[in-house]
């Protein structure tokens, strides 16, 4: 199935979890948050939450700014 991860189209296996996508993009262990289709997915739900076909996933972290 297809999903968009941080703005890039990706082919993901059916049943891919948000947690798997977080590792896929190489996110650090701490200071990371995920939105799926415009809503925050709390860290405690990353394993259980499956990315749907056509899902839009954003994986964010803190950087220097402001």
């Amino acid at each position, binding site marked *: 199935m297809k999903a968009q991860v941080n703005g890039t189209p990706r082919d993901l296996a059916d049943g891919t979890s948000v947690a798997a996508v977080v590792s896929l993009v190489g996110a650090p262990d701490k*200071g990371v948050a995920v939105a799926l289709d415009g809503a925050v997915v709390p860290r405690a739900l990353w394993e259980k939450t499956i990315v749907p076909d056509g899902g839009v996933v954003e994986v964010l972290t803190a*950087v220097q700014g402001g």
Partner: protein
Amino acid sequence: MDDPLIIAGREFRSRLVTGTGGAANLSVLERALVASGTELTTVAMRRVDAAGQTGVLELLRRLGIEVLPNTAGCRTSAEAVLTAQLAREALETNWVKLEVVHDEETLLPDPVELLDAAERLVDDGFVVLPYTSDDPVLARKLEDVGCATVMPLGSPIGTGLGIRNPHNIELITSRASVPVVLDAGIGTASDAALAMELGCSAVLLATAVTRAQDPERMGAAMRCAVEGGRLARLAGRIPQRFWAQASSPGL
């Protein structure tokens, strides 16, 4: 003299809030932050694969500096609300520096989107520190919806043009019942001192320090400027006069 800055019930000894953007590297940033004496510092939220720089959070934690996530880059209320919620999840803080800018050329706040986002975030339990224009009416409205501070610009972000409308800043500080933080436009130490003399409770700056020729020394300069300006404000300046007035007795 005990004179803490209090935002949403939290006390800070330093009245200088800094950003982390623009520093050549983390080592330069660290020296500048330490010299500035700041206790509260902003970070931005970005996609992991575009982040490029990491380690800023570890640096702030090691220095014992509170992290203040911002919503830089957001152009609509909806974007800013989601970014704030992501920052809360990632950084475990409900504090947010709310930025909703209208366009890339001026980076001026979009007042309509800003006020909407502020109201939504306050309703969602955030401590909201909004970056706003120097409009006294908008500042009042942001306070009315429950913002913890108002943070008017002195001039556009990164310009170093200082405080272009001191009277507006004074109008804002004279009526606000939350701390007023002069945010954006500071170029050098005298700008920061002026902000405090106009009644601001704190100054937020980044570029003026991080892009100075010697960021560490400018960090120290800003610390002194904010302290000096605050003392002058509390001391009460003399009125300005048209004609000279001798300070020595007549013969």
